């Protein structure tokens, strides 16, 4: 294979306000051969996106090239004149961004944006381009390819937009594709579909690709070669097979270590019984909740229907489901942020008032909420000691010395240095902010901690460390956790019990081992099989399964009657599943599955 792109001792720096240069990329070299997929892997700050963009001769505002070359077929793109660059972008090298939702212009039709580049570059005329676009829509298995071009970006789903980005990039038949974390923002079930579409189209078109990601398991499915980056330097470089199965560098091993094994029974820790008591700490009974004005106990948009969950003292309940399934809504009902239309929330056996305002201070203290995004959950204008000190003062009445001592303890508990007390949130990294976020909830000495996707915004190593921290805190304090996540592997390694939510209904619940071993609810099975495994060839195998073919990449729809999973279920029974609410089958020891099928039919 001939070399298409040579990145040769590339250096990129950031220019600060005082005109000093801070190196971001520190002399990176690698080659991309024709038709080959190279993965750039690393965590945030590793410079992977910056390097990938250099292939288009582009730097983000505030950055500049300070050395080296990026040669496309022998020609340095860094020194190219701007009209040469314009001719190169979109025609020879095409870019796919992380968030398609933000990178599609909301005011223009999809068709115009897909065909724009190749028509402007004179590769095709508008008619040919439309034909090619339609061909690509079909190749990417997008719905309604004839009329898709006339629609607007907001009219299609996120997964579809992501594939439309691919169509945009491929329309001009580029030699090189640059894919920047194209599946990171997607649900696992959507992710495999998009991955599969990318992989087959790349193969079919024969273009080379640079695939930027932080997710090793994704890389294993799609890349021929892997370049591991840390802090703007190459740590390891080799074939996908070699890097995945015999990582040669410490950092790669750390990355591998942070990848959790596919979810299966027996991954959770032995629950200690020392904090156990008879009555559950928190319990929700027959909850119906949603948004909009409630009429006769039914909100305008009902998200949760007849949800029953109980959290034993000292236990961790994982709540799992795709986005739009009502996971966060459930946490908000528990916290009192969203009053339920029907049903009760019990704390230590006593009914809690549905709204915040009516709950007593000690009730509020016992249930603490940890928000998903530490970035936005911490007031940027408050110092860390104020953030941590307020709940101490508010709930426990601590002041002065006593308060300062406790702040010190809290920082120690979440493994942050003491001097962080005097810092502002923006002076902390993402993981450190999330630790402060946790410490604030712990400051209240709560009984139940509601954790809403607390690690999903973090890099894999950082996220893994936070999970380890949570495990230690659970042992130390005996706090019960409600752990909401769309990542089944994380939940499998952390939760004692799992509640599987789909479209606001509990599909399955039980102990982690029971839920993650057969018999499965069809939805649980789909979720399990969608989690990418860290081995080459997993994607192809999975796509053959019945679940994947029936259930992937469909939008979660809330339904009033029948089982909402009906349209994605390989075992669906027409005229039954879509009409009647599924019965809850008790399969022993708190394990329940809501499905019309019987236990015997689940097994395979």
């Amino acid at each position, binding site marked *: 294979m001939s070399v298409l792109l040579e990145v040769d001792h590339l250096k990129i720096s950031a220019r600060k*306000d005082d005109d000093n240069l801070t190196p971001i990329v520190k002399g990176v070299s690698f080659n991309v051969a024709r038709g080959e997929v190279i993965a750039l892997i690393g965590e*945030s700050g590793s410079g992977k996106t910056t390097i990938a963009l250099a292939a288009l001769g582009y730097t983000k505002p505030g950055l500049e090239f300070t050395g080296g070359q990026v040669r496309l077929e022998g020609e340095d793109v860094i020194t190219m004149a701007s009209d040469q660059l314009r001719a190169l972008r979109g025609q020879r090298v095409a870019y796919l961004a992380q968030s398609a939702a933000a990178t599609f212009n909301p005011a223009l039709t999809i068709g115009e944006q897909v065909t724009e580049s190749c028509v402007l570059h004179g590769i095709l005329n508008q008619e040919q381009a439309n034909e090619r676009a339609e061909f690509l829509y079909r190749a990417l298995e997008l719905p309604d390819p004839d009329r898709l071009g006339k629609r607007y970006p907001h009219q299609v789903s996120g997964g579809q937009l992501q594939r439309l980005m691919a169509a945009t990039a491929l329309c001009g038949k580029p030699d090189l594709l640059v894919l920047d974390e194209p599946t990171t923002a997607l649900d696992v079930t959507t992710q495999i579909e998009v991955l599969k579409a990318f992989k087959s189209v790349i193969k079919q078109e024969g273009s080379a690709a640079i695939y930027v990601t932080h997710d090793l398991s994704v890389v294993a499915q799609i890349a021929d070669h892997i370049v591991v980056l840390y802090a703007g330097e190459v740590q390891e470089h080799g074939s996908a097979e070699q890097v995945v199965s015999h990582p040669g560098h410490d950092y790669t091993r750390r990355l591998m270590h942070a990848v959790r094994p596919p979810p299966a029974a027996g991954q959770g820790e032995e629950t200690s019984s020392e904090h156990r008591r008879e009555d559950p700490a928190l319990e929700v009974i027959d909850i119906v909740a949603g948004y909009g004005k409630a009429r006769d106990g039914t909100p305008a948009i009902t998200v949760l229907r007849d949800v029953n969950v109980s959290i034993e003292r000292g236990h961790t309940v994982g709540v799992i489901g795709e986005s739009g399934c009502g996971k966060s809504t459930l946490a908000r009902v528990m916290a*009192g942020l969203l009053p339920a239309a029907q049903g009760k929330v019990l704390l230590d056996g006593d009914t809690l008032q549905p709204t915040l305002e009516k709950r007593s201070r000690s009730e509020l203290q016992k249930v603490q909420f940890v*928000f998903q995004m530490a970035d936005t959950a911490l007031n940027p204008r408050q110092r860390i000691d104020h953030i941590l000190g307020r709940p101490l003062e508010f709930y426990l009445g601590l002041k002065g010395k006593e308060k300062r001592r406790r702040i010190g303890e809290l920082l120690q508990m979440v*493994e942050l240095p003491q001097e962080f007390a005097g810092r502002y949130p923006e*002076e902390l990294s993402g993981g450190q902010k999330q630790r402060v976020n946790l410490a604030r909830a712990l400051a209240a000495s709560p009984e139940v901690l509601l954790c809403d996707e607390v690690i999903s915004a973090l890099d894999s190593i950082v996220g893994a460390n936070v999970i380890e921290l949570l495990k230690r805190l659970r042992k130390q304090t005996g706090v019960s956790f409600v752990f909401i996540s769309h990542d089944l592997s994380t939940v499998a390694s952390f939760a004692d019990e799992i509640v599987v939510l789909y479209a606001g209904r509990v599909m399955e619940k039980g102990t982690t081992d029971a839920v993650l071993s057969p018999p499965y609810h069809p939805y649980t099975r789909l979720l399990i099989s969608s989690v990418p495994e860290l081995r080459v060839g997993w994607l192809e195998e999975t796509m053959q399964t019945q679940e994947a073919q029936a259930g992937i990449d469909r939008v979660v729809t809330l339904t009033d009657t029948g089982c909402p999973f009906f349209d994605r279920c390989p075992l669906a029974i027409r005229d039954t599943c879509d009409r009647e609410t599924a019965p809850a089958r008790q399969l022993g020891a708190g394990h329940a599955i809501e499905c019309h099928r019987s236990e015997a039919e689940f097994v395979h």
Partner: protein
Amino acid sequence: MSDTPTPQNTNSAIQFDELPDAPPKRKIKLSLLGKIGVVVLIFWAIVVAIGPMIAPYHEADILDEELFIVPGSDEMYPDTDFQPPSKIVLLGSDYLGRDTLSRILFGARTTIGISFIATTLAYLLGVLLGIAAAVGSKRLDMILSRLNDALLSIPSIMFALVMIAALGSTIPLLILLTGIIYATSVFRIARSLGQEVMVSDFVEAARVRGEGLWWIITREILPNIAMPLATDFGLRFVWVILFISALSFLGLGVQPPMSDWGSMVKENLPGLIYGSVAPIMPALAIATLTISVNMIVDDISAHTGGKLAKRMIA
């Protein structure tokens, strides 16, 4: 996982530290124009403080003819009005033969003082009501917003005109009127900024904690909207100066013999055709002040976004 690190060694054990994603503290660096703006602004601040003390004459003094007698000339009764700049009157004299420089120095206090107090009042009113609309009930928001829309729809000069005609032109009324008129635009800004912060996660976190409204407003919302409001204060201050000057120009503002820059332009307009600088000087005073405030504001807002856009189209 079996190899859980113990809490003590976790930090030191991380060989590959998580890279801080925090940008270094952003300091506002002013451009040359911005720096000039600051110098001019400081200059006028000093004039406000000590202007009347350093003024060669009183603002209402009509200068004696004797002052203008050129030594050696036999002209005993020289003109004192619209005189060009000279040693006696550094910036010339006005239509009544008063010293323009002294009147500008005195007028600085009137013009800037009234405008500043009026802007502050507008801010107190606008921020208070704007935040109330942002955090209060839907109905309160609706009532305040419609009332505000209605006030906004009346041309501000007309509003002032009717009120001054009804109640007479006094400085307190001038301040109150200007404050109310400009509170409408402050209300809109404070409301939208407040609404933005109100839905943020950290306010929600405070609500789940059980914090009261007062705490949320003073500790969570206000500190986060202070900076954009401060920038806007500059802009609003300029509008208020122009508005008060326009009122004075129409004869509705500051009443003689007090000097104020707007009315000084108006009084001396007839001198323009004789080439007198008397109407130009106060106009220049207004312009230097307002332009410098605007240049500083522009510089600050460029730091929060404008520069990004600049690099996008290389």
